[in-house]
């Protein structure tokens, strides 16, 4: 699906990126604890999160915070804001936590992608 459709269907706010993987052919594969609390249609009996995998195809990212961010191997990322910039560009702000005794670090990126798949178990 296109990013526009993805953003209408899923709200990333409050979700947690738990793993970040670059796959072949410029595919970005994210394992995500999707925040049910922030989805349309959430009901009180839903669990707070559900595990999903999001795959951005033909993807490259721009680190707008200038830290040279290209992914992470440790910790996780808590999404605090997202904004669709155009049909192929999604800006995401998340707090990267390494659990090393320090505070979270803000990461600001633009994900450019032709289309996105979501595996919603």
């Amino acid at each position, binding site marked *: 699906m296109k990013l526009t459709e993805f953003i209408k269907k899923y709200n990333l*706010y409050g979700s947690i990126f738990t793993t970040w993987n670059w796959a072949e052919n410029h595919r970005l594969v994210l394992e995500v604890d999707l925040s049910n*609390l*922030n*989805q*349309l249609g959430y009901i009180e009996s839903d669990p707070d999160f559900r595990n999903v995998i999001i795959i951005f195809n033909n993807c490259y990212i721009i680190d707008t915070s200038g830290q040279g961010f290209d992914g992470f191997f440790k910790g996780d990322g808590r999404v605090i804001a997202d904004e669709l910039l155009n049909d192929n560009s999604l800006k995401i*702000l998340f707090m990267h936590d390494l659990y090393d005794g320090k505070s979270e670090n*803000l990461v600001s990126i633009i994900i450019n992608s032709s289309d996105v798949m979501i595996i919603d178990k």
Partner: protein
Amino acid sequence: MAAIAVAPPLIAAGPPGWVALAVLGVVTVGISAIAIMNASNEADDTLSDEKPGCTQNCPNKDNGGKKTESKGEKPKEYPKNPDDLLEDGYDETSYPEAEKQGIRRFKNPKTGDEAEFHKGKPGKPGWEGKDHWHRFNPNKTGKGDAMLDKNGQAVGKGSKPSHLEPR
């Protein structure tokens, strides 16, 4: 005990013995009464007749008898206006880019308490549409205990109890 031991021979001795036994009995009762009174007076000096005192979570006579919470148990509340934290001695540690999104961060240099304010965005679902706070666990080990609920208990990052409504 001595009166009981000498009772049989005195009874056997006839009337003079009976008189002696009666005198001995009166003296024994008198001595016992004095001993009991002394013991009672001693107990009054060392033990209080009041009910046992309260040692934990005691009603406070100064606040109308309401239960007093010990430090750390009082539910934590953050203000509707995040600027109020600055007056309470907190430092602002916001990232400018996050602040543009209505997300501000504060830390109390004295207590170490660290919290993040999220301004609700009208029309957004769930907590994104409501003002709320998150409070961080200084002893976090992972996403499962990264935040604190209103009672200071470790809870999962972004979990329902990690969302604190402003007071």
